[in-house]
């Protein structure tokens, strides 16, 4: 295998890790790149979070106090873009970089130079996006969904910057996905058969295929926006023979699989953590794999449930309603399997498990409100209200983000070789858990009571709940500073040394490696029984 030869030469030139800034700029090491991705994601999480603080400060009470409506729209737009493309997706890619090679017994990712490239273009994408906020006319203000013609004829000139930055993010994601697929297909250790792979590897493999399928669709959508705005095409302009609804079909054909891109790896993480702290094998491994694959396939035929009010034929509305409801079956199977894994286990509640348990409960709440949203006639009432905002923050914050935090706490001792500060971690967990529910739970109520989303000011009947929501928001934002402090301490290698296995019930190749995991691992493949 050429990869193996290449690695031998590589090691002949470099003994140990290079140091200084060059180590990080030129690195082709999956662990370094994983670390870069994770830190980048965390910084973006704080930047996007700061924008959420601006939004919640403006909504603290009725009337306009802090920002102008146009800037408010820029904040909701860029907050969404940063959290989706800058925080959640890079964090999962970072975890994949760190863990996939160690879990399948590979020495590195299959395409290490492309790996470096796919990370290092990301900061430029976000510098471009953030700098658009400072150009004349302001940044993108049309929502992260950039519906035409608000994003074409009626947008400010920074739209070109927005389009360019989304193109770079898409290229980065596609390269990351190709790397994961090639690594998993070609570099599994002898004996690591498909149905022996850890679920995190399975869910990421399926996610990578989703990414390759839909990121080009997003690239197409932004390109059409670009040519409609600057080059006189009329894809989305009825006056020129186009159709603004076409934009929504294209966007959500990307957008719905994108939702699963942000949750399937989370399913994988929870499926690693729950068995460890239950001291019992994962219940229904095979059905977990099949359920993940079915969710991925179904994700391509449900997109129009994001746009029920746009005006579709009755048959289309019925089809998309029923297809969407079907998704709850494989998703339910996953939740049932996790509960069955815990059933009659021997449970302990270390920090990763606390986050995993919170994930199961809160993600399920988000899933159930998703089922309610699938019902077309009722969705006419929920659509574009805070009920939707509550729903997708339950699945994305207490779902995806909590799973990432669970993963960081689970594997951090493996990465640093030291146990993190458990007291701080528990503070982080309990503060986050309580504040996140104060933040998002009342959104269900104001949504049902009729508050539309993406408004900078609201009717007086929503005032009390909005105050509570904002307080929850500030508390959740501050709680993440505990996490920052903990991570800085962990990176400075403070804390007690840990064993290779770290957690009593942990099983898998990565737990057989020393802690911290050496810079190069599995240079000769392990043998899997």
């Amino acid at each position: 295998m050429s990869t193996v030869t290449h690695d031998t030469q590589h090691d002949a030139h470099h003994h140990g890790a290079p140091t200084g800034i060059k180590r990080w700029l030129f690195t082709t090491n999956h662990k370094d790149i994983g670390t870069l991705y994770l830190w980048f994601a965390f910084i973006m999480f704080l930047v996007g979070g700061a924008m959420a603080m601006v939004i919640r400060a403006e909504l603290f009470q009725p009337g306009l106090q802090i920002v102008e409506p146009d800037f408010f729209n820029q904040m909701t737009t860029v907050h969404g873009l940063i959290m989706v493309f800058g925080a959640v997706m890079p964090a999962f890619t970072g975890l994949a970089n760190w863990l996939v090679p160690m879990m399948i017994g590979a020495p590195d990712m299959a395409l290490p130079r492309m790996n470096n490239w796919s990370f290092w273009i990301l900061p430029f994408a976000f510098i471009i996006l953030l700098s658009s906020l400072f150009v004349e006319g302001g940044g993108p203000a049309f929502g992260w969904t950039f519906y035409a013609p608000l994003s074409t004829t009626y947008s400010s000139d920074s739209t070109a910057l927005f389009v360019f930055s989304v193109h770079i993010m898409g290229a980065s994601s596609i390269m990351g996905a190709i790397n994961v697929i090639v690594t998993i297909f070609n570099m599994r250790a002898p004996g690591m058969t498909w149905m022996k792979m850890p679920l995190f590897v399975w869910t990421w493999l399926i996610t990578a295929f989703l990414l390759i399928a839909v990121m080009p669709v997003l690239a197409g959508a932004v390109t059409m926006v670009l040519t409609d705005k600057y080059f006189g095409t009329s894809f989305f302009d009825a006056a020129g023979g186009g159709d603004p609804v076409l934009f929504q079909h294209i966007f959500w054909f990307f957008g719905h699989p994108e939702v699963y891109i942000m949750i399937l790896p989370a399913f994988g993480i929870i499926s690693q953590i729950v068995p460890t702290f239950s001291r019992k094998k994962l219940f229904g491994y095979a059905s977990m794999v099949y359920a993940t694959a079915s969710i991925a396939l179904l994700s391509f035929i449900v997109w129009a449930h994001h746009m029920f009010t746009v005006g579709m034929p009755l048959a289309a509305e019925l089809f998309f309603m029923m297809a969407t409801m079907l998704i709850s079956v494989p998703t339910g199977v996953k939740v049932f399997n996790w509960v069955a894994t815990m059933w009659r286990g021997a449970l302990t509640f270390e920090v990763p498990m606390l986050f995993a348990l919170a994930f199961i409960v809160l993600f399920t709440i988000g899933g159930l409100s998703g089922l309610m949203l699938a019902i077309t006639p009722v969705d006419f009432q929920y659509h574009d209200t805070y009920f939707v905002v509550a729903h997708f923050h339950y699945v994305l914050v207490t779902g995806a983000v909590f799973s990432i935090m669970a993963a960081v706490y689970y594997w951090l001792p493996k990465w640093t070789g030291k146990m993190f500060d458990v007291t701080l971690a528990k503070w982080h967990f309990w503060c986050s858990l309580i504040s996140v529910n104060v933040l998002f739970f009342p959104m269900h109520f104001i949504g049902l009571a009729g508050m539309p989303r993406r408004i900078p000011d609201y009717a007086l009947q929503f005032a009390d709940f909005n105050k509570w929501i904002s307080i929850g928001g500030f508390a959740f934002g501050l709680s993440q500073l505990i996490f920052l402090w903990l991570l800085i301490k962990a990176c400075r290698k403070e804390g007690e040394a840990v064993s290779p296995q770290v957690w009593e019930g942990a099983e898998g190749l990565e737990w057989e490696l020393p802690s911290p995991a050496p810079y190069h691992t599995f240079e000769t493949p392990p043998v899997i029984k």
Partner: protein
Amino acid sequence: MKHVLSRALIFVLSSLAILPVLAASEDTVDAYQLNLRKGVTDISGEVYDLHMLMFIICVVIAVIVFGAMFYSILFHRKSRGVKPANFHESVKVEIAWTIIPFIILIFMAIPATNTLIAMEDTESADVTVLVTGSQWKWHYKYMDNDVSFYSILATQPEQIQNKFEKGQNYLLEVDRPLVIPTGKKVRFLVTSDDVIHSWWVPDFAVKKDANPGFINEAWTKVNTPGIYRGQCAELCGKDHGFMPVVVIAKEPAEYDAWIAKQEDIQRKAKEEEQKLLAMNMTMDELMTTGEKVYLSACAACHMPNGEGLPGVFPPLKGSQMVKHDMQAHIDIVVNGKSGTAMQAFGKQLSLKELAAVITYERNAWGNSTGETVQAKDVNALMNGQ
């Protein structure tokens, strides 16, 4: 550890126990309204029932799943000295929890399909209203009568800027509400002049996107007379939060009287307009009316001080066109500018209002051209002279 866990348990269980209680509370509009409104039409009642059915099913599922989970958390913990079991699959159980949810889904889909079919049946309406969204107001045109008008936010800017106390219907009040008859099937044709808007009245369970260049249909049949308030539901730019929908439902007899009166008023206004062509208004008159019109129609984008928003909306203060090219100025106000957010105000404002606002723009904020624009100048341009 144990202490912390029992706290978590209490938190989650109590929030679950609270849910049904919250849902059952009355549906008046108050600061702690928690649930969907039942509304005032048969359809909105059906939608509410469907919502409650879904909600209760979801709560039951949640209680069962979380119940099993918390049972494990309490009784299957290592600190109790339990030995972990060995099982990790069971075909029977796995098939059961695939099939049972599927059956529950069918049970949900049947009433949902019936309601949806009823909602989409816009045939044989008694009254038809064309609803047109534009940045950031609604226009209503009665297709069976010669009546049409714009409906604009009536809340004072000072309330929004926290200078005056906020009124009871803050942000949910308009200058001219839509009026429809009760007990009759009213069909809405929904479209837009610029970006996508969404016309939403929660009490009717009607929310339909207004797409530029296309017409959507929706309908309602209101059972109880009253005033019903909603908002634009689709992000439509800067003032998306400031374009409410207000609908007054009147008894059919009252509605007939109202629509007849409106036809009369609108016919007289047109006659008045013709007379105006022969007259000249004074600068003072034009400036007073012009300022009013400017603040309601133009200031949202060009700002009250005429400076616009750099990079988004051009300034009028010191503008070359405003100061020097009167014909181009009248043209852009009347016909708008395609490919930009500048709307065609020729069909939104009367000749008098157009003349006044153009005069105002040419003389306010130090533009001081000293020229007046009269209704007949505007009329001349509109008729291509």
